[in-house]
């Protein structure tokens, strides 16, 4: 049963991605990418990552769609039509094939004896109860065990905000010209 839900959702995800990328109208494409994020969030719930699903639903389907729509109101609404590019398609397929070969070496999906589950994760799960006393293991790992990491991520978000404010937050040169010229008019 779990497999069917999982497989259906992830196939759905691929279909939405194809539909989004085939769109010539950018508005439709952005809305489909919002739907893509929402289905991805559902899939994260199925894969037991509730915190990640929460974030993806709020960020991917919410904020990033809003930002994309704001951008769309300033750029042309349609993409320039062009045919399928051969070289990038071959490159993408080759990368996919290479990864498929690599994936066949990965442990089976859901296997409890995979190396990833036997190194530090049990320590985190036991420690979260005994040393930190926080039932949500994700929170205790995020804020305590990997506190340095999260500090770095917060600083990245901070830096990105400063960068956006520097790029589009201020006035353009054209604006200052207009205000100067109107001031001249008043003086004259």
């Amino acid at each position, binding site marked *: 049963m779990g497999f069917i839900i999982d497989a259906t959702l992830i196939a759905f995800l691929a279909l939405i991605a194809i539909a989004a*990328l085939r769109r010539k109208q950018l508005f439709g494409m952005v809305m489909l990418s919002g739907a893509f994020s929402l289905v991805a969030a559902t899939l994260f719930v199925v894969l037991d*990552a509730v915190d990640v699903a929460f974030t*993806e639903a709020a960020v991917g389907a919410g904020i990033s769609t809003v930002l994309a729509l704001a951008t769309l109101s300033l750029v042309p609404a349609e993409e*320039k039509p062009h045919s399928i590019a051969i070289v990038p398609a071959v490159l993408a397929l080759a*990368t996919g094939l290479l990864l498929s070969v690599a994936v066949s070496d990965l442990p089976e999906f859901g296997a409890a004896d995979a190396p990833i589950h036997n190194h530090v994760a049990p320590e985190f799960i036991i420690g979260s109860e005994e040393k930190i006393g926080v039932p949500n293991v994700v929170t205790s790992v995020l804020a305590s065990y990997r506190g340095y990491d999260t500090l770095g*991520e917060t600083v990245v978000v901070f830096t990105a905000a400063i960068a956006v404010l520097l*790029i*589009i937050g201020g006035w353009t040169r054209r604006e200052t010209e207009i205000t100067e010229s109107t001031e001249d008019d008043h003086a004259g």
Partner: protein
Amino acid sequence: MTSLFAQWNYFLVIILMMLGFYAVIARGNMVKKMVGLNIFQTSVFMLYISMGKVSNGTAPILTGDSSTVYSNPLPHVLILTAIVVGVATTAVGYALIIRIQESFGTIEDDEIIELMDDADAASEGPAS
């Protein structure tokens, strides 16, 4: 064939990754490139979360019952922060797209390259 079913998630992740990668390198429209980048990014998230899944496990929120099997919390933490950082960097990308539109009047990369070549030719013309 058993491996295809056992690793179904990973193969679908690869298909998503190929779609995103193709959109990033083949499409000239910059907004489309950003959406392709987002799909690429989500495929990487999906790979990490799929690796953290344990069969018959539950979300890593302690129930107090010692027999409960939990999925691996570590990939969740990494991806949780990566999503928020991802949207912040996507915003920087969109901001740059807006500025490119304002200076060139287009967001198709081949047209921008043409405009830049024209500008180069015009500036070199009188000197030579």
